[in-house]
């Protein structure tokens, strides 16, 4: 069982939850309040949803040896545009208006993703720099849209995206799971997954096998933009309002962390969407744990460093090997001899 790719990420998540269980048994209390589920675990799912989304998009980008630093800014832009449109409506609660707002925002995000894809696949700029451009400028664009203020909205249908519940369950996690399910189906039932892994695993071999790597690359950035856009809507809907200054700040780092914990390598190739979901949930669990256990905010980063380190260490085969070898003494031939010979 330890051979399964998700064994270690899942164990890490469970271990963290175990810590919570011991330190604060009420962490696991889930009740129904006001017609919806209520409890820390539900919070983790609901708040983790945007990270899951951004992580899924990022995973595909990373699979092609890319990286997308601009997702945070795209998150901000998406929320800003949707809220701007909603705030100008006479009746914010109208479903039609909300749909238009959402559609506009996602449309723009697709375009932004296409821009990134253009820079990477057509102009051939290194992804980290190509997306850095939008990371910097995009934040400005979001602020331009909101005029630097927080646009508060009241739209009921829109708020549901972030803090609504459907059949007791948070809408946001349902959306995230839907996107996860659809994209998993898409990459594994079509040949997309294989082709992406080939593009990222060995680009030249991919090219000589007739892959349209340019197009595929473009596609993943567009998809990344879309995921970030949905996440942006959720984040805006949660508060509810568009905070162009802070929405999605540093989410790219968390997303990359999530996919790494999930077992995807930043050097491209093999990827695991399921792993990313687990990774994102792990990160959100950690955050919620810090708040719940009352860890002082000056120590938060230290705790985060420690947990991430531990998670990565247990996942590292090299580390496990070393630990195992230490416990089991090495056979008679030790490498000290080798040095003697060379002398």
């Amino acid at each position: 069982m330890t051979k399964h790719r998700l064994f270690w990420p899942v164990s890490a998540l469970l271990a963290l939850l175990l810590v919570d269980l011991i330190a604060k048994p009420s962490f696991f209390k889930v009740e129904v309040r006001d017609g919806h589920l209520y409890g820390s675990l539900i919070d983790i799912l609901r708040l983790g949803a945007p990270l899951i989304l951004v992580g899924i998009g990022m995973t595909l980008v990373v699979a092609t040896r890319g990286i997308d630093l601009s997702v945070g800014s795209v998150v901000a832009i998406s929320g800003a545009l949707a809220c701007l449109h909603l705030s100008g409506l006479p009746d914010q609660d109208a479903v039609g208006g909300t749909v238009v707002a959402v559609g506009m925002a996602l449309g723009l995000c697709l375009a932004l993703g296409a821009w990134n894809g253009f820079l990477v696949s057509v102009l051939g700029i290194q992804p980290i720099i190509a997306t850095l451009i939008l990371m910097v400028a995009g934040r400005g664009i979001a602020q331009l849209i909101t005029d630097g203020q927080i646009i508060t909205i009241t739209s009921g249908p829109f708020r549901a995206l972030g803090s609504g519940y459907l059949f007791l369950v948070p809408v946001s996690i349902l959306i995230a799971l839907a996107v996860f399910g659809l994209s998993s189906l898409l990459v594994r039932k079509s040949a997309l997954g294989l082709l992406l892994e080939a593009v990222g695993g060995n680009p030249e071999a991919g090219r000589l096998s007739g892959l349209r790597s340019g197009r595929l690359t473009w596609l993943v950035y567009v998809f990344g933009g879309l995921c970030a856009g949905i996440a942006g809507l959720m984040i805006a809907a949660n508060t509810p309002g568009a905070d162009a200054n802070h929405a999605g700040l540093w989410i790219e780092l968390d997303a990359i962390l999530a996919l790494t914990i999930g077992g995807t390598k930043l050097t491209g190739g093999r990827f695991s969407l399921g792993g990313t979901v687990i990774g994102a949930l792990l990160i959100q669990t950690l955050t919620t744990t810090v708040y719940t256990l009352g860890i002082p905010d000056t120590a938060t980063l230290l705790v985060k460093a420690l947990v991430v380190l531990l998670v990565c260490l247990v996942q590292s085969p090299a580390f496990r090997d070393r630990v195992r070898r230490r416990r089991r003494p090495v056979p008679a031939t030790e490498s000290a001899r080798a040095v003697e010979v060379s002398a």
Partner: protein
Amino acid sequence: MTALARVTAYRPQQRHLPMLATLALLVGAYAYGASQYTAFGSGQVVFNLFINYSWLLVVAVGMTFVILTGGIDLSVGSVVALSTVLSAELLGEQGWPAAAVVVAVLAVGLLLGTGMGALIHYFEIQPFIATLVGLFFARGLCLTISTEAPSIDDGFFTVIAQTQIPLPGDSHVSISVLIALAVVAVAGYLLHHTRFGRTVYAVGGSEQSAVLMGLKVARTKVSVYALSGFCSALGGLLLVFYKLSGDPLSAIGTELDAIAAVVIGGTILSGGSGYVLGTVLGVLVLGMIQTLIDFDGTLSSWWTKIVIGGLLFAFIVLQRLIARR
């Protein structure tokens, strides 16, 4: 052959093209600034670029080594901040002598870098993640040491901070600039004239091959992170000389600036190819963008960001276009 003939006969090597393109763009940007804004044309504007970015330059040099091996170091900003906080704490609260503080700060940077390098090499943790842990850890240390940003009034530090080295034409540079340029020179020497430097390129070219060729890959990989940690700590000291304060929230996002500078300078992120001189140019590009915006003085906060992005885009695309032919 006359000098002119030699110049006109010069055909730049393919691999030097991105750097030359960047240099041309920098000159172009400077000429543009001089034509648009009063006082931009003075030499001091150029020297200010070095004065203001000497610390970033040192950090970016360390980053160049790491990126050349195909790695990445996200911890640099936090280590810079940690150095400033440590300096302030040790000089102020603890009352250590300046020399001891300098040594201690550099040692801490070296140690942190070595630790991350060891994680990366021996436990095969991806550089991005190992150094992200370093980022959290160093910033966390900053905040546990102090949430305030105390000033530094140590005599030695103040002298270094405020000494101006006069240059012809009523200009001046700071001591930090000299330190930074010395670091660049040493780095260039290391990379091109020592076994260590060549092994850095080798590891970036193909780590597996380097191992099979019997190169000292472990030592090199750990060393580049140690070196980057050291450079970050030194960059932190230069920042202390620059500001005379220890701020736990300083240098946030520096890692991206440093990476951007290295990559704009023509170094390939996957490793194995690039030059420190390119990194110098990359830092100057970032500085030039900021200077242009400062002199303009009409941009709102958001337009500032958009224009920075736009200029970055223009630089990179022009660089590619020039280098392609």
